[in-house]
């Protein structure tokens, strides 16, 4: 009896599993396979939405890979990429160190912990675009940032933050750090409370000072969590757009133009979509290679964390 019903229910399970996963599979296919092929096709043409022919007839405008050779020589693209890297190299470590410092302060209980914790998490919940408008107001020359600087220095400060190339870049990085340090804090704190207390106690009994305990026990235990937190921020920071675009529009000039802003401008202002498709594909290919490496690490990390 048992032997006869079991294969039947396993079949039933497989069928149901297939049907349950079908909608997700369709959505993934709908957003990956067809768009990728379309992107590949358009990327070898001069097609633009204003060219008067439908995208499927883009072959009439075949340009024998000129988009890709143009890309290699596009200084605006390479400087946007460089700027994206600079923003990432400043913001992610800053967010990490600030988040880690805050997390260590929250590792044990103290009066008011819960309320402080909730308030400190607020920035990451603010809609990024709204944060952009917020920091746009804060960095006006007659705005609060200059007002605070004035009262600190004792003389009136009227810096035009967002119209100076260097200061504008600093301002958008400040906004990013303000918004995403809480995420680092949240994840690192979750990791920190998972470090076994008895090991720390044992080290204390052996005479390790807090700094030694932190470096030799806490940090190694948190390794996978730190990698996950950094990976998340690197991925998201690479896409940086909302706050930055609202604060500066990529300006003054191209002073704060990151990859996403650059692609956005070519898409909506220059309208050369064949070229945009080539840029996008190049980025997708590079990221896919990174993704495969990262996924292997993440999979291992998940096994360790579980």
């Amino acid at each position: 009896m048992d032997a006869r019903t079991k294969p039947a229910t396993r079949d039933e399970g497989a069928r149901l599993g297939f049907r349950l996963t079908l909608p997700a599979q369709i959505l993934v296919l709908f957003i990956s396979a067809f768009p990728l092929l379309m992107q590949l096709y358009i990327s070898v043409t001069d097609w633009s939405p204003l060219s008067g022919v439908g995208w499927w007839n883009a072959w009439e405008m075949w340009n024998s890979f000129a988009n890709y050779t143009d890309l290699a020589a596009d200084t605006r693209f390479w400087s946007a990429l460089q700027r994206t890297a600079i923003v990432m190299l400043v913001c992610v470590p800053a967010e990490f160190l600030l988040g880690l410092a805050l997390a260590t302060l929250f590792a044990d209980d103290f009066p008011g912990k819960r309320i402080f914790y909730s308030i400190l998490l607020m920035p990451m919940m603010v809609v990024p675009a709204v944060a952009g408008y917020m920091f746009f107001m804060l960095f006006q020359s007659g705005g609060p940032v200059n007002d605070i600087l004035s009262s600190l220095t004792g003389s009136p400060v009227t810096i035009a933050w967002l119209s100076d190339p260097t200061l504008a870049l600093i301002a958008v990085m400040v906004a990013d750090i303000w918004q995403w340090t809480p995420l680092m804090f949240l994840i690192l704190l979750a990791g920190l409370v998972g470090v076994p207390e008895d090991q720390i106690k044992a080290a204390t009994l052996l005479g390790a000072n807090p700094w030694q305990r932190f470096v030799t026990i806490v940090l190694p235990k948190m390794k996978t969590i730190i990698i996950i937190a950094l990976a998340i921020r690197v991925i998201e920071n690479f896409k940086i757009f909302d706050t930055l675009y609202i604060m500066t529009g990529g300006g003054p000039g191209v002073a704060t133009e990151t990859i996403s802003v650059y692609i956005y401008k070519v898409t909506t202002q220059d309208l050369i979509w064949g070229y945009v498709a080539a840029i996008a594909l190049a980025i997708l290919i590079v990221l896919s290679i990174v993704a495969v490496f990262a996924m292997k690490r993440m999979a291992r990390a998940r096994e360790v964390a579980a």
Partner: protein
Amino acid sequence: MKRSVPFEIFRYAAILAAMAVTVVPILWMVSMAFKPIGEWSATGAELTWWPKQPTLANFEFVFGHSTNDLIVALDHTALKPILSSLLSAVFGTAIAMSAGTAAAYGLSRFGSGQNLPLALIQLRLFPPMAVMIPVMIMWAFLNLNDTWWGLALIYGIVTLPFAFWLMKTFFDDMPREIEEAALVEGCSRLRVFTRITLPMMRAPLASAALFVFILNWSDYLIALLLTTREWVTIPVYMASLSSSMTGQLYGAKAALGLIAAMPPVIMGIAIQRHLVRGLTFGALKQ
């Protein structure tokens, strides 16, 4: 562990400093939202940190009432953008949650769709900007441009990875005994899923849905590319609150920004327990 008094003093000082940096920008927006136009300041005039004459004029203005100070007429009031944000985020969440929950259950219980975890993380990895050209072409072809349902569809796809991963970890953690007992009783597997598992998972489902809703509500870039006039969302609409004639309508922007910022902040606090799990694709459970 007992801590020394100097440490406690240091701790509170550091936390208070962090709190100040966290809260001041938000409070500035709140303050701006209630300031009459004369106090919006900018150059010359003295900066007022708190409105001297608090007013609701900014809120009335974005909903279409012109006031004595703000006599400019708005082309569109903020009502439709709010509706657009709401509809696209809610239905986007519905799409992501239904497809994601079903797929997560299929994988967790029957091992179907082994390719999905990786495919969905990859989907999350790519900058939306790098896949938007085909999406814009497809959406134009399907007549989905500048509609809230078009936005809802792309939101549903973009946040599917989060819905899927969150629900997968919840299903993986769930004890199987009750499901197995129901199977022995003769329930079909589909009935077990819809009548037993889903009702039991009401709380995790709600948390995951709120998490996905926050993500959808927070979008700017996709709406900027896919909506132009009729169904612009709140962040896109906010750009229209400045013109060469009026300059920046700071107060109006702050008022609308405050309205947009409220729901995610409240929901975020409500699902604080699950934030880590959601943000790390289930790699970490707080």
